[in-house]
């Protein structure tokens, strides 16, 4: 599973990146690869409001308020299951 965190490097994007890594670790997903995309033109292909979360090329979150670790876990479980 390929996960992309989209954000130019603001505080909120950092937070989302950290919570995503935490969620992946707590779920023990060994096949997951988390990429942190900071390039604006790459980001704007997916979302308008940062930060964003993309799982296997599907946008699952955009903008504020940020999802919590528990929420991200829920999203990841739904996508896999």
């Amino acid at each position, binding site marked *: 599973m390929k996960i992309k965190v989209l954000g130019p490097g603001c505080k909120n994007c950092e937070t989302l990146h950290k919570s995503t890594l935490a969620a992946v670790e707590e779920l023990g997903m060994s096949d997951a690869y988390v990429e942190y995309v900071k390039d604006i033109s790459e980001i704007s292909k997916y979302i308008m*409001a940062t930060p964003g979360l993309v799982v296997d090329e599907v946008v699952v979150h955009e903008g504020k308020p940020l999802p919590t670790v528990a929420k991200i876990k829920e999203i990841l479980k739904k996508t896999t299951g």
Partner: protein
Amino acid sequence: MKERNKFLTILLIFVYVYFVDFDTPSVSGAILEGFFMLQEYVREHTLTCLVPALFIAGAMSATISQASVIKYFGAEAKKIVSYSVASVSGAILAVCSCTILPLFAGIYSRGAGLGPAVAFVYSGPAINILAIVLTARVLGFEMGLARAIGAIVFAIIIGLSMAFIFRDDEKERHDSPPRREMATEDGHPVQTFIFFIALIGVLIFATWAKPASSGSFFALIFDYKWSFTAISLAVVIIIAFTGMDKEKRVTWLDETWGFSKQILPLLFIGVIVAGFLLGRPEHEGIIPSQYVEGLVGGNSLFANFFASVVGAFMYFATLTEIPILQGLIGSGMGKGPALALLLAGPSLSLPNMLVIRSVIGTRKTVVYVIHVVVMSTIAGVIYGTF
């Protein structure tokens, strides 16, 4: 800001401080004016107005899902919907131009297109909650209302006109990637609604002004304003501790603190500079009032046009347009030109023209700037005659 401009700014300040004669009464008076104006803001506008407004802005960005608003900007959204949402959603989506420009780029290149994107970028800075509240508080309720209505109406007109002029060269758009709706656990809508009403209640009751006549409904509220404020505050606190989980409370405070850090230092510097240059109403700053009155006094077409052009090119940090206008009005600026400056000022500046140009190209940017200047001038002339 380009490195060269930074250097020139520093050089200018250096040369001024090097040669200025601090002993002359006009200079020392102007310096004092700067601090008197800052004191006025700290005493009159900070605790009862700015602080509650910052908490409201924080709560909005912690509870309102941006994604739920943004979906109305999609390429498949109905035109009428995307224009109306674009012109008012700055109130929730954006507090400073740093969030507005990325959204502008997104709406233009992937979403509803040029018209709604332009409408959004024009109205955004004028109708965010902090700008409206502080404008109404410092420059008067009438000016606050005129600013909000002017921004919304003219945003739609400019957007439609731009979309019409460039109707033939809609550029190739990116396709939207697939997205999955994730159910959001928004808590109870009713509770959230009461929460916001109570927050706004704190702001409104705490700033309730003493009415001219006693015995009216407004005077009655004024007599009990602190009780009403306390009740609203109690409701806010109760909901915050019973209806919200810890995570949400922390996000709320984080966002509020984030906005405060972003806005307050620049605002207070702006207040000092405005006081130094222009002075409080009835007082002189370093720029003599007759110059201001000569250029932008009254409600002539030239005064309105001049205010629009200056506003369009000058950069105002978030909210600093308000103390600057307070100084200008105190020095004799007419209310029409004041509105023109308020409309053209925060939505355009030389730096953000460059960003806009990189997104939509030179031709469209020039047309957009002309639109803003012309529309703001018209708005000023209309408002000034009433």
